């Protein structure tokens, strides 16, 4: 085999390898790769309130899903820094998805009996549905003050990932 054929063959092989691993590379490079974890979701707290405002359908190149809502623990101290993460739990493993926090004056005003401060009551998070393995997932929220032990709540929202579809399973 002459040299030019060898070079052409090398490019073909390199292209095929890249083609096979490109999704993993893209997820890693864009920071969308999700790690499978073991998270115990059996103990949930009755002191948490929440609402999911928006679940966007998957969109864009990475078929990103955006979830926005609010959640709080009735035991929150005033003006503390709070953190919420989303957990997608299947039968055998879970993905933990970080969120951003936002101030929610409307939530504070709706629950005057808890004397909440508005900071960090809201949350929003995006994840690539491509990074999710096929299967059925329940959405949990991990809610707590920074530095304290967080509590879990079950949102009663279930999603199914099948092929490229990622949809909420409606009750």
């Amino acid at each position: 085999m002459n040299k030019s054929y060898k070079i052409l063959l090398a490019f073909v092989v390199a292209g095929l390898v890249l083609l096979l691993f490109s999704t993993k590379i893209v997820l890693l490079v864009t920071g969308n790769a999700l790690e499978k974890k073991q998270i115990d979701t059996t103990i949930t707290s009755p002191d948490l309130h929440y609402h999911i405002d928006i679940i966007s359908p998957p969109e864009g190149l990475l078929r990103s899903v955006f979830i926005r809502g609010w959640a709080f623990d009735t035991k929150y101290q005033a003006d503390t820094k709070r953190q919420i993460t989303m957990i997608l739990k299947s039968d055998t493993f879970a993905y933990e998805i970080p969120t951003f926090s936002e101030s929610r004056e409307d939530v504070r005003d709706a629950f005057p009996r808890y004397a909440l401060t508005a900071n960090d009551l809201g949350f929003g998070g995006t994840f690539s549905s491509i990074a999710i393995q096929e299967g059925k997932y329940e959405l949990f929220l991990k809610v707590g003050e920074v530095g304290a032990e967080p509590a879990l709540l079950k949102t009663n929202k279930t999603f199914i990932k099948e092929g490229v579809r990622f949809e909420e399973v409606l009750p």
Partner: protein
Amino acid sequence: MTEHKTTKPKAALLATPKIELFAGIIASLIIAMFPYVYFANRNLELLSASDLWISAGMVIAHWLMLFLINLAILRSFEKASFATIVAALPLSLFHIGLNAVQKIMPNVHYWHGIVLFITVYIILLLVIHWYLSPNLVRKLNLIIGGIFLILILVNIMPSVLHHFRTEKADITVGGDVFEKVENTAISREHYPNMYLFIMDEFSGQEGLERYTGYDNQKFYDDLEALSFNVSKSSRSYTLLSRVEITNLLNLSFLADFFSEQERAEALKSPYLFTTLKAMGYDFNLINDQKYISIPDSFLKYQFVPQGLFQREENLAKILIEKSVYFPIRIQPKLDRIDIIKAMFDYGKKSSEIQETKLFTLGYFMFPHHPWVVNEHGAPLPESEIKNWKNADTYLGQLKFANKLVLDMVNEIIENDPQAIIILVGDHGYRQAFHLEKLYGIKMEDPELEYFFMRNILSAVYFGGEKLDIEGYSTINVLRTIMDELFGLGLGLIEEAN
């Protein structure tokens, strides 16, 4: 004799490759321009001159970049031309190809296409470099260029013929209207602020009931509770926004079709603006999609909510969306919702800018597609963005528009109770038209459907006073208001029925 005979062919041989070389480069440009010509031709009625120039510049810049890269790699003009020919169309039509593949293999993503393209492109460059002779490449350039030149001519010929046949016959300029501008000498101190909000594709009651079965009475009741005068039977003159808006800003039915030059000319100093300017009015423009091309010299304030590549209806956007560069056009639908809310917020704030003599013109491409929200403001799936088949998609966005409109006018009236607020659609819901255009579903009675599709939102808050506008086109609504306010004696023109 012999010497003479041998010299002539030599000169010819030297000259021919130069022409062929140049023709090859032009051939690569022709192929790069083909998608531009094709999509421009299909959307000619909707495009502005600046659209055409910007997009042409964009395509030529892309071609030049490709050509120079290929020239740097291959160091041969003819081979660089051929490599550009090979690369230009896959890059320009990448998204169409990807969509077709994804229908069969849904797990194929953008990056798979990119890797595949780059791999094939590199291999082709090597093949061209090593195995193709300059002579063969020159011939291939000419053959492919010739084929695409014929395709371009076949594409544009019907439009060119149509343009020459119809351009002059359709125009009936209402010259008497324009003359009055110069004679306007009225100037008072306390003319009220005026707000003209044009809601694209906001259907009137009759059209809405016909195409969606929905009774929007509650919305009209809410408007009337705010002292709006409403008309449920108003109609636009045409179904084309560019024509309708140009006409209404001139308070006259100038034409049912504008060439781009005529439209641009008619918007250089529209009668409504020149008259109000003579009255001492300042101008404030909410310009969704930068759709209104009135010269900036008229404007004191302007709100343009998005950049060139975020706009919905321009040729550059269409070309980018079809090409390998389509990801730069992807924006979360939540962005569009935020943009819409920002425009309505600006509309509210417009009532705080000046106490008197401010004319706010708001063009909202809403509830026009992209259909991104349901009636509660929650996002819709991507499949609904331009779904003309499902009237509920449009209806949901219209119901959400109802809320935003009421919220906006409520605040304006609170801040500015003497205001004149004009709420209009530029045309109604054009489902029947698009079902025919996109899916070949014929209208049984086109005249009847056009009658309903031209039924528009029409409501006027006249400083809390009564004003009879039932059945008036927007042009006649505006003429009535101008007469009431300034005593211009414009009168009415023939209705759009």
